[in-house]
Structure formats: C-alpha cells, structure tokens
C-alpha cells in the first residue's frame, strides 16, 4: 500500500506552474451573475410589462374601448375592495405554452387562493390609492396601458404574477415605474444583497413588522440610474419595484438609451415605501 502511495506521490511530484487564475474566475462569475440578475429582474419584468402594454394595442387596434371603461365590481367576500374599481378592458397576456399543473402536495408552500380576476381588481384599487397619496409633490402617474385612464394591474398567467407599468411625469421629465406582486420564490425567501440588481450597491432593510427590503441602484450610464427594490413580506408575498430615468429602444441592430429626467422621479426610500403599502399582498 505504501509503495503505491509513494508511486502516486512521485508521479505528481513535479507540477508545472499553474494556469488557473482564481481572481479571473471570480471576476468572470461576478459578471455572469450580475448579467443574469439584471436580465431576470429588470429586463424580464420590463418585457413582461411591455407585452401587457402592447398586446391590447395590437389586438384591439382602433377599437380600443374609451378610457374609463366598464366598472368591475369587487369580488364577493373580498376583504379590501369596498368600492367599485373601474378597469379598462385590457387584454391579459396568455401563456404561449401549456400551463404547468398547480401542485397540491402538502410539502408545497401555500399558494394564493384568490382568483386572478379578483386579485386584479383588488390590487388595482390598492395601487391607485397609493399612487394618489404617496407620490412626491409634482409627480403624477399615468397609465402605460393604452386606452386606460388610470394605472391597472395585469395578471401574467405564465409566471402567476401581477404586474403594473406606470409612466411617472413631472413637467417635461418622465420615468418608468414597474411593480410586480408575486408569491415569494424559495430563492428569495431569505433575501440577501447577492439577489439584488447590483450587489455592489445594495442595502438590506429589516422592517419592524418582520418583512425585509433589498434596495439597490445601478448606474446604466452617465446620468442614467435604475433603482430597484424588493420587499419580502412575512405572509409569502414579494413586491418588486423598479424605476429609472432613461429609456432604451432599438435603433437598427443597436439599443439606444436616452435620458428622460435629470434623476429618477422617485428616491429609493420612496420606492421602498411604495412597496410597503399594507394591502399590496397576495394574502389579503
């Protein structure tokens, strides 16, 4: 046995200089992680909201209903919807493939039981109240959904998320505000800055009610900032909010960004406060 061990040691006794660059590995992995976080959190939500915004326009064209369309009554038994919320007839994006079955095993965490149609009504009522009262002076929110006078949540069946896109305006300045309300994924259950849009500029805020916020900023270019915050509630709801002061759009094969405001129209603290609206939850 000792003889074999000695032979093996002798065989590997004279290694050439290592070609392994640990710092390079860490740097490459950091870039990959940041890119993935960016794609999945920012661009992913933006794409989903863009789909929600563009689909009705493409499908209904000139026959879009007038602003302030039919009033939808609150769902029976809905605990928070006390007044009728007017919804415009936006088209809810449909999944492109078959829906995965909802699991019902005992080991799976509780899923929201509220029907999506009721959830849209309730959450839209909540967010309209919040946007009326919580925005800073001079900033107003306009619906990004064509044909809609007021902001409105859309339910995205594929991801089982509620999403809302809003254009913030202050004079000539404008910016985007995206909100996503979704069940907390297992990966987000214990929030850390590594999950944020930019782990190098991030802070973790623990609130007195047991919920946790991640707040992060990403410089997308000179004078262009994107603010990102994720609230993880104790009840299993996560609320993501993103705002920025630039707009990116394709120009030929290139993406071009234009600055739309001197700085984002909401501060990171205002964004955190927005996500903490008490009724912005999937478990009312």
């Amino acid at each position, binding site marked *: 046995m000792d003889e*074999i*061990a000695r*032979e*093996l040691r*002798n*065989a590997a006794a004279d*290694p050439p200089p290592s070609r392994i660059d640990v710092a390079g*590995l*860490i740097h490459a992995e950091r870039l990959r992680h940041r890119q993935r976080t960016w794609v999945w959190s920012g661009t992913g939500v933006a794409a989903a909201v863009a789909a929600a915004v563009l689909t009705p326009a493409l499908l209904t064209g000139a026959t879009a209903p007038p602003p302030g369309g039919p009033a939808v009554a609150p769902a029976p038994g809905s605990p928070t919807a006390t007044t009728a919320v007017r919804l415009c007839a936006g088209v809810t994006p449909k999944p492109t493939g078959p829906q995965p079955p909802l699991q019902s095993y005992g080991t799976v965490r509780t899923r929201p039981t509220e029907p999506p149609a009721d959830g849209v009504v309730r959450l839209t009522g909540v967010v309209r109240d919040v946007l009326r009262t919580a925005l800073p002076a001079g900033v107003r929110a306009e619906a990004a959904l064509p044909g809609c006078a007021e902001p409105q949540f859309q339910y995205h069946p594929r991801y089982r998320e509620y999403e809302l896109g809003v254009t913030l305006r202050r004079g000539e300045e404008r910016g985007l505000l995206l909100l996503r309300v979704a069940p907390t994924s297992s990966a987000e259950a214990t929030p850390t800055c*590594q999950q944020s849009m930019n782990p190098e500029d991030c802070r973790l805020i623990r609130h007195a009610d047991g919920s946790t916020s991640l707040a992060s900023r990403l410089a997308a270019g000179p004078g262009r900032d994107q603010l990102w915050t994720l609230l993880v509630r104790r009840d299993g709801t996560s609320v993501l909010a993103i705002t920025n002061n630039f707009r990116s759009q394709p120009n030929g094969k290139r993406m071009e960004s234009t600055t739309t405001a001197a700085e984002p129209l909401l501060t990171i603290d205002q964004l955190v406060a927005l996500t903490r609206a008490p009724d912005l939850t999937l478990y009312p």
Partner: protein
Amino acid sequence: MPADIEGYREFVTARMDPLRRTAYLLCGDWHTADDLVSSALVKLLRHWRRVSAMDSPDAYLRQVLLRVWLDERRRPWRRETAWAEVPDRAVRPATDGTADRLAILALLAELPPRRRAVLVLRYFCDLSVEETARELGCSPGTVKSQAARAIEALRGRLVGTPAISREA
C-alpha cells in the same frame, strides 16, 4: 455570487496544489488537470454560501472534481479514435525519474475510470474506505473490491515495467 469571496479565495488557495495533483493523477495530463480544476472551482464558487457551511467542503470539492472529470471523459473529443496508420508521437525525455512517472501514469490510464478514482482517493488523498465510498456514491464493499483489483493489476505490471521502460 457568495458574499464571502475572501473565504472562498483562502479556501481555494490552500487547496490548489493538492487539487491539481489529484486531477493530474485522474486524467494524466497537467493541461487537462488545470481545466478540470478550473471547472470545479467555478462550480464551487456558485454554491460557496452553502458549501462553506458544510462539515467537509473538501469532500464536496473532490466530488465535484470527480464528476467534472467523468463528464469530461464522455465528451466526443476525448474518445479514442481509429487510425489507419498510427500517427507519430512526440518523443519525451526519459530520465529514470520521468520513466517511472510515465510508467505509473500509463498503468493508471489502463485502469477503468472508477477504479482509478478509487486508487487516487484511497492512496493519494488518504481517504478511508467509507469516505471513498461516500465520495464515489457506492458501497464500502465496492471500494474494497475495486481497490484490490486495481492494486493487483498495478503490482502485476509494475514488476515487469521497469525493465521495459529501461529498455525504452
């Protein structure tokens, strides 16, 4: 990305040398060994938060290295190819030390992969039968039988090898 990058760096730096040697004994080529170790270190980095809390991160890293090596062997460009005429090979300088080293590596290369892994883990990494079995995902009995066959094959060939290598 794990928060404890410094911890990862320290861990990796301390184990780099034995890890490269282990990879070399598995694959028989230093360049491939460096590639295998790099792949294993990237996988370790992605799970470092969880792995650093384990009782034995070394065992995890060795397991990753073994899997990376076994996966790499299955790639098409690693498979043996048939040649109509045997291509020329580079002549290596054969001092006594290098001849012995090449002999043991050639003998290792003739062993089936898992048997080679058993030998390297048991006699180079100094793992017990139970630890080796855990890392290879087999029973201790399998490790014992594989080790016995590997040693038998190695001893049988080592007896005749020096004469052959000296002649060469």
